[in-house]
């Protein structure tokens, strides 16, 4: 049963060659979600990250969170999927570094953006960002949008 709620038109990678890459170019935003608790369960089963803070409401509250939230690596996985779509496929990714800055909650979308910062020694240097976008859990009174991941990637695009 397909239940994809992602922007599938963009995550099917298009071919890209170096002619199509210039420093400063921005990639089209790719949005995943809104995320549901089932997405956290599915990622837990696929990744092995079974920390109950992502699945069990009571446990999350006992740890000081108002509800469950996404694994950082789930959001990083979305970001890698978006990146693969932008740069001609996952096989071109040679390095991906992600720093986790804010939690992503059920009901949030994960909006991924990226930008070419330089081309050095044949490697395309990209900065990437994932932002949570949504209401957030009520007691937290969060901004509608916050940075969840800042990162950078090195990409090898065929000549």
């Amino acid at each position, binding site marked *: 049963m*397909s239940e*994809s709620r*992602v922007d*599938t038109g963009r*995550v*099917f*990678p298009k071919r890209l060659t170096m002619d199509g890459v210039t420093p400063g170019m921005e990639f089209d935003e790719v949005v*995943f979600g809104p995320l549901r608790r089932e*997405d956290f369960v*599915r*990622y837990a*089963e*696929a*990744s*092995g*990250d079974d920390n109950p803070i992502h699945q069990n409401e009571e446990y999350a509250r006992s*740890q*000081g969170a108002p509800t469950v939230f996404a*694994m*950082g*690596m*789930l959001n*990083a*996985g*979305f970001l*890698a*999927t978006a990146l*693969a*779509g932008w740069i001609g*496929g*996952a*096989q071109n*990714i*040679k*390095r*991906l*570094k*992600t*720093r*986790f800055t804010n939690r992503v909650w059920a009901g949030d979308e994960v909006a991924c953006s990226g930008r070419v910062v330089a081309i050095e020694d044949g490697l395309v240097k990209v900065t990437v960002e994932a932002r949570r976008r949504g209401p957030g859990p009520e007691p937290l009174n969060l901004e509608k949008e916050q940075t969840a991941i800042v990162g950078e990637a090195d990409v090898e695009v065929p000549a």
Partner: protein
Amino acid sequence: MAQDTIDFDLPIEADHVARFAAAVGAEQDPIFSDPQAAQELGLPGPVAPPTFGVTQIFHVPRGERESRLGANLDYGRVLHGEQEFLIKRLPLVGETLRGEMRIAKDFTKEGKRGGSMRFVTYETRFTDADGDEVMTALYTLIETAKDVG
């Protein structure tokens, strides 16, 4: 007794790769499942997604990592701060990688709002059947000060 490294196998199985790809929104990308699509891109066959290396947790659970590498972290105040993958090539479906995990960095710095934070980076180097490097995963945990959160 703590030791310096943990060695383990990471099998790259088709069904597992498909479930992982679907979980990260990549079910539409044929490179993870379709041999022909992969070959058209010059790959020998379907591959695993770039972040698939995190599934090492199936083979080295936290408890084992803690007891054998001995970082002695208090998980009540530990956050996943950073993750990095250095990728020579993506893992091929059907192969089994060898993982070797060690603590690459362990340092403490003063936080901006007072209290110190400890950064522990676990480095896992994955090699293939020929002993060639496939990728390296750097998993950084932050242990916050006792009086925070």
